[in-house]
């Protein structure tokens, strides 16, 4: 059997390095790298041993697993251990889709393209690493490796207030990373696990007393939660999005937020089930707060990017809620929703970026009746809005539907809160569409143009997946549930 994950990592590394040194040809190298990556992800799907009838020996429950000794001293074993299960596989697919879409979308980046595309590649590499790493130190290494390129993407290619936003982003998420690292290390040392491997940590975590689990869970929840982001630790997100270049925003919303959700599921909820159970009231409270706050504040936004950013807070709140529900359908819903949000928010940030190029502003009330001038942009904006507000036959619906069904099953009439908020979500998207794209033309500069082909192609890729998985969600659901879901209360 081929060491597939190592090969993927190696090609991504090589591609990233080549992109940095490719000068003006960086975009071709980046496109080649991401195409190769996409093919490799297809192979991953084909050889996924989580399918019924396969089994994997090395790390139970994971496919394609590999493990090599790295640091072995008497009291500590650090291995390079990687593997995928259904959850990470779906998020890896998301990474591949967003990487290609971002590269295509930013085809005409002229400001130091080698650096730009290299950092995009590096961000995706880090995300891939996070999704496959099954060792705490490697997990953390990749986790931090994502922060750095994003810091530079915002800080160098960003808008007028970019230095402030980049610094805020970095400090915020770095503080969270430290708390998370302390939590993970405490988990290892408290439990006396023999190595940093996921299987060892998993067993050790389950052996801890409830109180210790509860404290550790809180630390990890904070660490992962800031990435989500959860209210009230969310204020870095709108600023980072507003200042980031479009490609940066796409990766930030599409992938970086998912790291928080993935980490929470993999390293906190699965490993510390008893602590998770004790801390549930906090998690539920934060989830509801994020759902309501994100949506209500969105309505007041005038900047299109801020609007989408706050709607992200709302959607990630639903992800958190679905995780907290703690049933297998809730977990499936959470992963599905992360995938859906990754695609749809990326699409909406691309729309924001194109609107900025076309009109010179993202102020929703400054532009009106843009549809005759920019019909393609208007169509993409409509598609993104509809997908984000959960219209059936687009990807958001099966995810939100199953999340809400799971919530109803667990919490009963509390489901009215997220359900009612869906009306507000629909309201702010439709209102935005009405103000920017419908009505008589207003405030449109004479040189305004519709989206160029590469931007259209980038958005088109995302729309295709939005429809495909919206009509046939079982394609994803079957992948997610193919691997045994361990460590859940009640399973």
């Amino acid at each position, binding site marked *: 059997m081929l060491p597939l994950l190592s090969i993927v990592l190696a090609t991504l590394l090589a591609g990233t390095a080549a992109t940095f040194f490719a000068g003006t040809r960086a975009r071709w190298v980046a496109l080649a790298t991401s195409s190769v990556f996409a093919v490799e992800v297809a192979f991953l799907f084909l050889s996924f041993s989580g399918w019924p009838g396969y089994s994997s020996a090395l790390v139970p429950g994971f496919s394609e697993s590999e493990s090599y000794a790295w640091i072995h001293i008497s009291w500590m074993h650090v291995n390079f251990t990687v593997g995928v299960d259904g959850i990470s596989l779906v998020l890896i697919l998301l990474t591949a889709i967003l990487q290609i879409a971002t590269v295509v979308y930013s085809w005409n980046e002229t400001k130091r393209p080698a650096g730009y595309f290299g950092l995009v590649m590096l961000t995706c590499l880090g995300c891939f690493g996070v999704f496959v790493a099954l060792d705490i130190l490697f997990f953390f290494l990749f986790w931090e490796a994502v922060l750095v390129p994003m810091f530079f993407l915002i800080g160098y290619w960003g808008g007028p207030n970019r230095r402030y936003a980049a610094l*805020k982003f970095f400090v915020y998420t770095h503080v969270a990373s430290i708390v998370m690292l302390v939590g993970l290390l405490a988990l290892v040392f408290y439990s006396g696990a023999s190595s940093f491997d996921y299987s060892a940590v998993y067993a050790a975590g389950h052996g801890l*007393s*409830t*109180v210790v689990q509860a404290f550790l869970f809180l630390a990890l929840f904070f660490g992962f939660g800031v990435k989500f982001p959860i*209210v*009230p630790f*969310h*204020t870095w997100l709108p600023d980072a999005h507003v200042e980031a270049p479009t490609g940066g925003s796409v990766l930030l919303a599409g992938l970086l937020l998912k790291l928080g959700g993935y980490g929470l599921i993999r390293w906190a909820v699965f490993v510390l089930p008893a602590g998770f159970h004790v801390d549930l009231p906090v998690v539920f409270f934060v989830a509801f707060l994020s759902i309501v*706050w994100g949506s*209500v*504040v*969105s*309505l*007041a*936004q005038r900047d299109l990017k801020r609007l989408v950013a706050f709607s992200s807070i709302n959607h990630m709140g639903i992800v958190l809620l679905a995780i907290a529900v703690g*049933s*297998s*359908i809730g977990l*499936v819903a959470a992963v599905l929703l992360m995938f859906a949000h990754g695609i749809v928010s990326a699409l909406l940030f691309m729309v924001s970026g194109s609107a900025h190029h076309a009109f010179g502003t993202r102020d929703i009330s400054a532009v009106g*009746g843009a*549809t*005759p001038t920019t019909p393609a942009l208007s169509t993409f904006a409509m598609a993104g809005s*509809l997908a984000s507000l959960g*219209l*059936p*036959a687009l990807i958001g*619906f*099966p995810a939100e*539907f*199953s999340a*809400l*069904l799971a919530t*109803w*099953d667990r919490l009963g009439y509390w*489901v*009215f809160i997220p*359900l*009612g908020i*869906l*009306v*507000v979500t*629909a*309201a702010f998207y*439709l*209102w935005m*569409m*009405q103000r920017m*794209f*419908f*009505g*008589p*033309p207003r405030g449109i500069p004479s040189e305004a143009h519709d989206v160029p082909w590469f931007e259209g192609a980038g958005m088109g890729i995302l729309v295709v997946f939005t429809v495909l998985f919206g009509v*046939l*969600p*079982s394609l994803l*659901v*079957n992948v997610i*549930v193919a691997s045994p879901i361990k460590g859940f209360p*009640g*399973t």
Partner: protein
Amino acid sequence: MIIGVTGTRLRRFEYGGWIAVALSGAAMVVGVLIAFGEAMSPGNYTNVQITWFHVAGAPGTFPNGFTLVMGTLVDPISSLMLVVVTVVGFVVMLYSIGYMHHDKGLPRYYAELSLFLAAMNGLVISNNLIEFFLFWELVGLCSYFLIGFYYEKPSAASAAKEAFLVTRIGDIMFLLGIFLYFSHYATAGPNGGWAANGFVFVHGTTPFLAPSIRGSSTLITVAGIMILGGAAGKSAQFPLHVWLPDAMEGPTTVSALIHAATMVAAGVYLLAVASLFLGFTSFDSLVIVAIGGFTAFFAATMAVVHPDIKRVIAYSTISQLGYMVLAIGAGFAMVGLYHLFTHAFFKALLFLAAGSVIHALGTQDLFKMGGLKKPMKLTAAAFAIGGLALAGIPPFAGFWSKDDVLSSVYSQLGAHPAYWPFFVMAFAAVFLTAYYIFRAWFLAFSGDRIRDPTLPAAHEGPWVMQVPLVILSAFAVGAGLFVFLPGFQGLLLGGAGVAGIPPAYGTADVFLSAVSVLLAAGGIGLAALLWGNGRVFSLADSSVAQPLRRLLLHRYYFKVGYDWIGAKGVYTVSRAADFFDRYVIDGTVHGLERMFGAMSDRLRRMQSGLVSDYAAYIVAGLLGLFAILLVVAPFLIARFGGS
């Protein structure tokens, strides 16, 4: 049948008016054939089965598993609806060729219209409530697109948004209703059908729950109210009725489709299906009767004063939907669907006739029209036939079904005295209906000349617009008589027999019919008296009725109130939240930043370079550490360590 399904679904990819017309014609043929097949041999036919969502678990136990199979199901009720949707859909498509020919964006128009019909057909043949909901939302989406077809007009864009959001409130309730029914049936699970089919409400075979279990719990009562909420949103029942009159911003053809066969019909269909196969508690029934009866009257009053020809018909739709809801609430779902069936034809007829007038004159204001019966004979006749059917004059279609509605509710009054006020309201609405629709007819068509001489000379539309009027006129005359055909009876009976509900027609009370016909005739007579032959009746400014007229013209101020709550209220809250977010939450972050800045400034000064200072820090630090180890840690262990 599969061809019918794929045919209707494929049409969304087709562009060009005639292609759309041809395909919808094909769909009509298939739909009518299905209905014939169903009439010959009633039963349930299931074709497509696709697993859409499957999370493994023990069958029937929800927390661990959930399976959803999408499929199609044709049974007597859905075949009845298929006829309505495909026939009206085809006629409207044909009419569009003439009506829309000078508009731009035609590919978009036909694509959206086709998707609209496809979604509605999909809804009708869904075999479970989730699939139903999926198409239900698509129907809502298409009406959003089509109401906002003239998106350059701010009022059209606003009306589209309003329609989507108001029905969205209903949709949310519907979704919760699905959850409630789901958990009820998943736990109270009946025969093995549940476990085998996952989330399939096998409608058309046997009722899921024994009647003794039906209506036993609060859960089901709430679920029924939620389903009603969904239906009220789509079918524009009080208090979610506000969007429908504003939906007149769309092209008239779209109004015809929305009002006759697609959007609003979906709500009534849902209610009928829920009533037959899920069952309502007695409390639910009372609420449904109350909403239906009240809406029938309430909407009719608003139609009495309105000067816009399309809005008068729009209010009449809300009012007629009220009748359907009333019948379903009283336990006669098939009677409600029967009224839906006849109403679809005469309402489409009225809209298309009004469309001819608007097409010719370019205005919708009744007070600018007049004397149109000479240049537009066919349209005048068609509108009159539609009006007679709407008013309930025998032998036109509306008479039979409306009479059934009233007599079926009447038959329940003995057992449910609480239905009385709503029965009276519905009865009073008969008079109002006849009055307002003939007020519109007299204003537009009677007299010898047009009131606004600046308007262009009136003329009939091209043949593609006239043929639909003829077809629909035939249905408006004859659709009510279908009930005397054995096959059609079979369709109604096939649905009714399933749930053990007796067929309602034939129980018509002769006395009741006579009174309602007299009321309708009186309404027409009053309209003729006040508006006939080109007369214009106007209230004196000092009249006591003036405030009432203003109240009606302003639609009881519901729209103003909702705008106030929705736009102003929520937006203000949202602005406040945004302020809080920027200045309090983020302000705290900045405060922390400054605090750390100041602290690091102090700390920097601690680096004095004096060894004695450092020694003092070390000692202080050690003492602190010991304090933690010796005092705090044992306390924590003593407090929590045991568990």
